């Protein structure tokens, strides 16, 4: 058993990943023989559940797919159905939807940056441990997250709510005065977000860069939420309706999830790093400036530095929410009434973790014939495995428990929402002699 060892990293329950899953890495000497990340795929259940339902139920049903990002599911659903019905929404509704998304990004990014990812960099088991030494930082995070939650609750994210998002708009439109009540909190949140970027810049990052294909929405005037062409740094430039022509979902034996690849190419990366690298010029000046201050320059190719990018996106979300509140005038009608027709509609929106694709086919009574949902985590899954294949060999000299922890950290770079995808996550590392079987 001397000489080259084979070892297996096995994580049966990945901590600080939303939900549960499992990772298995087999190394023979310094060579990675196998990487398997197991993630299940709950949207399949919801796709089946949606069939035969009226389109007006889709925003509520799909928002139940994920407890962390219900707005993303609502937004992709309403936009896809509006395209199927040929509906055009009021510009004021469009603004409100941007505000809605700002709330979710603030909540989700704050949770991940401070509570789930930062403990890795600071060497704490979890945020409970971190709170003892970094109390004011954790308190800042809680307040920031609460402000995001306030926006989401106000516009009706999780529970049925008078203002909730609907196909064609919202059930009710808030007054200008009511929105203004959020402004003081958001002004504080903007400062706290700038502080978040500066604070994350003090962390130490492994020297690890990869040559990614970044995929994100791009809009001519805005940092993307609900609209834009789908573009990449390798020449992709398509409409949402063409998504399934350019991306393929492959079945893999070890996971119920499907692996997404760019047709004719390989894995790709969606989420904050992709958005940032492809849309830096659309960020507000405050966000661009703080990125430059901390020497975060495009293209960012080190996935561990995604924690900084999330911080910059927090700055954007707060600045954008303040802009919406300033510019908002209530729409003439809270929503456009839909006249029912048969059709197919696709939409892509930018969930906190990356692009979320929905497609609906409706019959002439407005009933859903088929639904297709591809969440960001399943799109990133193959890319996470590719990162681990490159990263694991660097950990050969580390004790097994530390190597395992570092692999978990590499997975957390992607903020994988496995509760959207599964229930428990597990990681496995095994050793066995090289040149054996």
């Amino acid at each position, binding site marked *: 058993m001397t000489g080259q060892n084979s070892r297996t990293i096995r994580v049966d329950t990945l901590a*600080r*990943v*939303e*939900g*549960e899953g499992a990772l298995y890495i087999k190394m023979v000497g310094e060579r990675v023989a196998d990487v398997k990340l197991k993630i*299940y795929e*709950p949207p399949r*259940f919801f796709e089946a*559940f949606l069939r035969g339902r009226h389109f007006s139920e889709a925003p509520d049903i799909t928002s*139940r*797919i994920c*407890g*962390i990002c*219900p707005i993303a599911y609502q937004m992709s659903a309403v936009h896809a159905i509006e395209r199927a019905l040929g509906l055009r929404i009021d510009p004021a509704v469009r603004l409100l939807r941007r505000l809605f998304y700002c709330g979710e990004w603030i909540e989700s990014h704050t*949770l991940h940056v401070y*509570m*789930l990812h930062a403990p890795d960099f600071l060497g704490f088991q*979890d*945020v*409970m441990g971190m*709170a*003892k030494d970094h*109390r004011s930082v*954790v*308190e800042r995070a*809680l307040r920031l*997250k*609460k402000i995001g*939650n306030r926006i989401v609750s106000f516009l009706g994210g*999780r*529970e049925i709510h008078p203002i909730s998002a609907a196909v064609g708009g919202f059930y009710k439109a808030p007054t200008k005065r009511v929105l203004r009540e959020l402004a003081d909190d958001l002004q504080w949140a903007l400062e706290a977000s700038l502080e978040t970027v500066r604070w994350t810049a003090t962390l130490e990052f492994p020297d690890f860069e990869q040559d990614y294909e970044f995929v994100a929405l791009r809009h001519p005037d805005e940092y993307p939420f609900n609209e834009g062409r789908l573009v990449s740094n390798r020449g992709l430039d398509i409409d949402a309706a063409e998504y399934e022509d350019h991306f393929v979902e492959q079945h893999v034996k070890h996971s119920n999830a499907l692996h997404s690849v760019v047709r004719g190419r390989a894995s790709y990366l969606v989420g904050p790093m992709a958005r940032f690298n492809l849309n830096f010029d659309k960020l507000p000046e405050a966000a661009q400036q703080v990125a430059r201050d901390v020497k975060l320059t495009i293209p960012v190719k080190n996935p561990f530095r995604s924690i900084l990018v999330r911080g910059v996106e927090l700055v954007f979300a707060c600045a954008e929410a303040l802009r919406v509140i300033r510019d908002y005038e209530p729409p003439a009608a809270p929503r456009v009434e839909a006249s029912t027709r048969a059709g197919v509609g696709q939409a892509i929106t930018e969930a906190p973790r990356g692009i979320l694709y929905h497609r609906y086919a409706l019959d002439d009574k407005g009933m859903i014939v088929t639904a297709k949902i591809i969440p960001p985590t399943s799109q990133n899954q193959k890319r996470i495995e590719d990162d681990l294949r490159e990263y694991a060999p660097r950990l050969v000299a580390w004790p097994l428990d530390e190597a395992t922890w570092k692999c978990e950290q590499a997975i957390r770079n992607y903020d994988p929402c*496995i*509760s959207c995808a599964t*229930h*428990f996550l597990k990681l496995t590392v095994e050793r066995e002699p090289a040149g054996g079987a």
Partner: protein
Amino acid sequence: MLIIGYGNRERGDDGAGVLVAEQLRELGIPTKIHTADALALIELWGGVEEVTLIDAVVTGAPAGTVHKWDVDQMLGAEASHASSHGMGLVQAIGLARSLGCLPGQLHLYGIEGKRFAIGQEMSTEVKNAVERLVRQIAEPS
């Protein structure tokens, strides 16, 4: 006094806490339902003196067992880690304690579940346990 039902109704027995809260509402007892991350519980109970929290758990006990814990038992219990939410309930409670924002009194009810797959129906044992717990909370002896 605030009663919070926590869980995911799309995941079989995980919806136990939510169902308790819904049934208490039908009896005219105000409750809150929480389906998002455990961390946001700290926001929900902010400033409240007495809180009762109901969640689904897995401790190895027979399905339908109703556990009652206080904060110290919860923080000391390995079993409570089986709560099925990413940012665990135990972590949220531990964090709240270290930041001094726990309610004065926090009562925790855990309903032992056995199946948690997406789209699965709640088990009979858990449904019965929900009814028992609703009666117990609504009509304290």
